[in-house]
């Protein structure tokens, strides 16, 4: 179950999307997220979905893999959907005791759910096709102009690198601890909410202890290799924009234009 979380996971490949500069992908994803809030009707979402699936097809990441990431946030999507469904006033479609579904509510619920799904799939494409290290390198480069006004861009990027790097490690650790406690007869699946929450203590305490141990080891290993922050640091692979990034930029601008135009399609 814990392995199903694809957030921040990388899917190895050598597609056009994989080869794009990380900065291009970060900017494109940001534009894409903004674009999702520009959209004001279902036609806009249709265009977005077509574009998104085109990108997925080019990236050659299996759909199965992408949708697995959605299952982890299914609850949030379902909650948003239900909240919108029952909370919006308007033309009444269905009524039962204190529950009322309106035409506007139904439309809003679908609208929000689709937006959430598109946000999650869109941003997971970025992490699926970009190695975490490239991603944070790109972020550091993008933020570096702000270091003049005191933003610690290197440190931010480093923290992100470490956080991403240790997601799989901590998941593996969690898996191990869960199994070890199960072997001692621990039961995480039955009982009421309170009992279940309590049954997490045997997992959380060792996990915290492990995290501190891992953090300490990492700090020591970095110091042993003379790490001293970002100033004067060179890198083995300098990232640079290539022709593919120009194509991506043009496509992105075009896409944004189409989306803005889609606002004026009337139903």
């Amino acid at each position, binding site marked *: 179950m814990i392995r199903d979380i694809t957030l921040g996971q990388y899917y190895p490949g050598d597609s056009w999307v994989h080869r794009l500069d990380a900065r291009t992908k970060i900017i494109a994803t940001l534009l894409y997220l903004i674009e999702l809030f520009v959209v004001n009707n279902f036609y806009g979402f249709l265009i977005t979905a077509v574009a998104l699936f085109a990108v997925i097809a080019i990236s050659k990441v299996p759909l199965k893999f992408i949708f697995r990431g959605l299952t982890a946030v299914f609850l949030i999507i379902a909650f948003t959907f239900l909240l919108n469904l029952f909370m919006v006033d308007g033309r009444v479609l269905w009524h039962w005791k204190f529950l009322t579904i309106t035409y506007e509510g139904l439309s809003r619920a679908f609208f929000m759910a689709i937006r959430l799904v598109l946000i999650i799939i869109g941003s997971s494409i970025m992490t699926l096709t970009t190695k975490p290290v490239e991603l944070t390198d790109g972020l550091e480069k993008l933020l570096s102009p702000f270091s003049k006004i005191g933003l610690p861009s290197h440190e931010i990027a480093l923290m992100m690198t470490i956080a991403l790097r240790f997601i799989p490690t901590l998941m593996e650790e969690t898996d191990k601890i869960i199994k070890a406690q199960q072997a*001692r*007869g621990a*039961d995480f699946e039955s009982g009421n909410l309170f009992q279940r929450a309590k049954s997490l203590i045997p997992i959380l305490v060792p996990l915290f*202890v492990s995290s501190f141990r891992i953090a300490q080891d990492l700090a020591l290993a970095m110091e042993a290799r003379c790490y001293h922050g970002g100033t004067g640091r060179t890198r083995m692979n300098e990232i640079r924009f290539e022709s593919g990034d120009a194509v991506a930029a043009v496509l992105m601008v075009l896409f944004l234009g189409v989306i803005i135009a889609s606002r004026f399609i009337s139903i």
Partner: protein
Amino acid sequence: MPISVRNLKYVYNPGMPGETVALNDVSFDVADGTILGIIGHTGSGKSTLLQHLNGLIKPTSGEVYIDGECITDGKAKMTDIRRKVGLVFQYPEYQLFEETVSKDVAFGPKNLGCNEAEQEERVKKAISLVGLDYDEIKDCSPFELSGGMKRRVAIAGVIAMDPKILILDEPTAGLDPSAHREILAMVRRIHDEMGIILIFVSHNMADIAEMSDRVMVMSGGNIALEGTPAEVFSQGEKLAEMGLGVPPAKEIIDLIKDRNPGFVSEALSVDEAARDIKAYLEESDS
């Protein structure tokens, strides 16, 4: 409570990138009272196999029988399996979580539904079995103990469930030589006193040779060799091919054999080797 494993196969991440066959048609039996040593390279499927034996992993295909009862058909009750088969993972001290040692050791019995009196009795017994003083240690925090002691407490946590089969994954990993010897002696004592099946994984060939009644060599998800320590370690070349070795004493014996055709010895431990070499020297002197 004999174990029997039939055509066990397990595939990690089927249909995903990184699909790996961890076990590929594994079958074996373990008779009552046996100490089975398992050796194999990292990634040979040892840990995966161990986790099948108490139902933590469901096989892709194949069956595991504990005491004649199939535990892989989905009908068996997990608590029953875990009561019978105790599994101690690598670095078990990382799973300690309670405020006091006695509470931590009682975690298993409590999960099995023992009442308080029985819990306490089991905790006492388990702590003394791992060679610690119950009254001295029961109220200590498990986090303030030394590495070797933490490991004993963690092993006690599994023993307190009173298993009929005890499985240890590299019980001596990362310990200093004296703690290493103590843990091995302790494991041996637990086996003798509880009269159970003991299965343990180790990378130390001398430990395997000294402790085991039978040895199983895993390689690439298969059982490459199986037999008594003497049988398995007589195939030094095959073991070397798999990146494994023979006990140091056996290495010396083999070298002496190469140069002295008259020398005969089946020794695997240092003591046996010393005895045989001494006997040979005295014989050739006279």
